[in-house]
């Protein structure tokens, strides 16, 4: 197939944008500076779906963070879905991997095109009524989530195994080369700590499904399912960047089978479906195709959304809200539902969080884990603090810095150190001094608050029939911020003898503190 310079330009743009996003992804890590020097969550600041979630959430719109998303919408209304063809990293990934997995040429019923609009409408209606699930289907969130939770951990695991092998086995010629390249990888191209995520495989399978859909139809996801594509499509209806000819030519009809988005029809060009890949400028045997700026003309048959379908989508979206609300309040049901510092009140948090996984990528202590059902039926992939895996580093404010939608407020260090995310509770049936009469203080030793929130008190305890003087740990509620380092470091094997619960969170209206010396 002949390719025009437009095709090369598009491919360059796709590769360049993908490279920029991957580079920013690698920079989403602590590298010795408390304040991240790059706008690492740029991908979500240009994301109109993230802006929509923020716009429909309570509180003022985050102009300062999300204005780039509005620029994208404005440019789309002028030029069409350039974002899908030229910028979107998921689109670029599908274009790139399509060759690898094989490309289906099945022509799907045009009816499938409507699904993405219904998805957008349904999700939008649900968001309007307080249940925001846009992030589950946002292609940018899918891209970064898959990268963070699955692809990057697997990449690190594999590389570590390779380096470990050559560390353990000294092979002539090969080993020195591998060993010498290790510092470069360790310092710039790999994660400092091997990332560990509970939903890695689950997230990967979803990503894999989207990739494998390429075998069915090229850009199946983008054409039929992507709600961001639908939103951009709606905006591009009156775009002034136009293709000539505007319909299939009577003598050729090549575009009918070659156009990857099936946008060129006999009735005219469906502007909302054209991904602006511009391949047609190359493969047109008559070299008739060109793109140019002019006022919108006729011949856009558009996609007939059908009133019945739209109404069904709206109704389904609206129904989600009460369906969720008739369940129990999740954080009362699950006392271990702990959110990162700076998280806004749970209901607003769920409306703002677009499940982009930026916070989980940047978390220095690896405590942030994606939720499956722990945060309720609509909490999938939202960040949880899981202290047995890792703890919240006392002097770190990174998660608030990367959150693009204000689900996590950016806190100054002094604010963060006062932000209560939970409360440590000692389990006397597991804790060594209490349960076994053995000395231990690991929780107290690691407690990071200046005046320690865990204190040791000497007491005579009956151990094996004899009184023994032991130091026993106690939590001082008013000093504990729930960072969870005690739970992480507790040396008891298996379940920790100290666990953080979500009592007394700063983001909730505080119930009165209990009086008394440990209150």
């Amino acid at each position: 197939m002949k390719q025009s310079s437009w095709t090369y330009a598009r491919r360059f743009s796709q590769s360049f944008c993908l490279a920029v996003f991957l580079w920013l992804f690698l920079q989403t890590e602590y590298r010795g500076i408390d304040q991240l020097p790059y706008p690492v969550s740029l991908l979500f600041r240009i994301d109109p779906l993230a802006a929509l979630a923020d716009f429909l959430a309570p509180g003022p719109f985050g102009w300062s963070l999300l204005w780039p998303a509005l620029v994208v919408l404005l440019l789309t209304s002028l030029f069409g879905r350039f974002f899908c063809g030229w910028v979107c990293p998921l689109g670029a990934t599908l274009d790139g991997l399509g060759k690898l997995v094989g490309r289906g040429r099945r022509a799907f019923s045009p009816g499938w095109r409507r699904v993405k609009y219904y998805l957008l409408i349904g999700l939008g209606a649900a968001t309007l009524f307080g249940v925001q699930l846009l992030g589950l289907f946002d292609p940018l969130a899918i891209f970064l989530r898959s990268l963070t939770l699955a692809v990057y951990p697997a990449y690190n695991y594999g590389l570590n195994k390779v380096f470990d092998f050559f560390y353990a086995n000294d092979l002539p010629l090969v080993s020195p080369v591998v060993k010498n390249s290790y510092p470069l990888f360790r310092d710039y191209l790999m994660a400092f700590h091997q990332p560990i995520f509970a939903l890695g495989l689950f997230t990967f399978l979803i990503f894999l499904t989207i990739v494998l859909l390429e075998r069915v139809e090229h850009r199946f996801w983008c054409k039929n399912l992507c709600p961001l594509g639908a939103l951009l499509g709606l905006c591009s209806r009156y775009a002034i960047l136009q293709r000539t000819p505007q319909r299939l030519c009577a003598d050729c009809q090549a575009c009918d089978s070659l156009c990857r988005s099936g946008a060129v029809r006999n009735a005219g060009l469906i502007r909302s479906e054209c991904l602006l890949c511009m391949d047609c400028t190359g493969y047109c045997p008559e070299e008739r195709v060109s793109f140019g700026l002019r006022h919108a003309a006729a011949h856009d048959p558009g996609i007939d959304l059908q009133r019945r379908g739209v109404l069904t989508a709206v109704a389904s979206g609206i129904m989600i809200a009460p369906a969720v609300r008739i369940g129990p309040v999740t954080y009362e049901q699950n006392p271990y539902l702990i959110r990162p510092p700076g998280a806004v009140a749970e209901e607003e948090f769920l409306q703002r969080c677009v499940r982009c996984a930026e916070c989980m990528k940047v978390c220095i202590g690896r405590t942030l884990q994606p939720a499956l059902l722990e945060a309720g039926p609509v909490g999938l992939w939202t960040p949880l603090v899981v202290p047995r895996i890792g703890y919240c580093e006392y002097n770190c404010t990174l998660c608030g810095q990367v959150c693009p939608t204000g689900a996590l407020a950016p806190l100054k260090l002094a604010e963060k150190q006062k932000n209560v995310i939970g409360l440590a509770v000692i389990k006397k049936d597991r804790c060594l001094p209490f349960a076994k009469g053995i000395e231990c203080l690991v929780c107290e030793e690691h407690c990071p608050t200046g005046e320690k929130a865990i204190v040791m008190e000497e007491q005579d305890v009956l151990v094996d029939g004899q009184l023994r003087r032991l130091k026993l740990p106690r939590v001082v509620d008013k000093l504990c911020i729930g960072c969870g380092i005690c739970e992480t470091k507790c040396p008891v094997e298996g379940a920790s003898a100290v666990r953080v619960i979500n009592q007394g969170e700063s983001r909730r209206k505080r119930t009165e503190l209990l009086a008394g010396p440990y209150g």
Partner: protein
Amino acid sequence: MMNQIDRRTFIRRTVQAAIAAAAGGLPALDLLSLPAQAAQAPPLAVRKGQDVPLLVRETISALGGIQNFVKPGEVVVVKPNIGWDRTVELAANTHPGVVKTLVQLCLEAGAKQVRIFDRTCNDERRCYTQSGIRSAMESIRSERVSLEYMDRRAYKELTIKGGQAFDRWEFYMPVIEADRLINVPIAKHHSISQLTLGMKNLMGVIGGNRGRLHHNIAESLSDIASVIHSDLTVVDATRILKANGPQGGRLQDVRVLDTLIASPDIVAADAYATTLFGLSPEQVPTVVAAARRGLGVMDLKQVRMV
């Protein structure tokens, strides 16, 4: 747990059994606890001063100079406490100035390489930066100095001969393999071991679930110190942490003492450091256990003050 015993162990046990039998049921005399260095009193240097580099140099030269401890061409490990994400004035980590001058002294003595590391409690990147150790090491500008993160692959399980709390533990091999170890703890309060000093600082070069050591801290630390020999122990008491240790976080818990203690005998150095807290060596079980097991001298009257 001992499946095989080597010849030395066999002989020792036989002798012990014989002595026990000869003594007619008296507890066996533990030959290991015979103080090996008791014959010659270990030197101990204590100096005060506000100029940190000068203080380090004076203290080390009181011991006869660094060349007594580091020979040209040797690989030296300098092991400060960098355990916590705390700044210098909070007295949770060894003073970067003390570490820097010691490293410089090693370089002046002709060390081939000086390696600095610690297995930290908080994130190691934060600790190395926040403690000031990273910038101090970088400011030396020598290729022979390397501040390293612990390599997770370099731990190896070793047998602890005569171990009281453990008979095996994971150790960090670069320390075992180095020619010299200079142990540079900071003197701090600690709820279980009372104080954290030179012996406790060695916990930063072992692997495994370190929390388990606290169940029997005195014997555990002696087990560790019996495997890892410190050629020189320099206790940083320029500032000490009197409460809320070992991590601190409040200036009111810090006392500025401008003091440095150094000795080739880790027990003697630790024993002297207890006095800075108004304690005596007998009150700190780790020091007592180590002395009983012959790892050094705790009786300050038997120490040669220089």
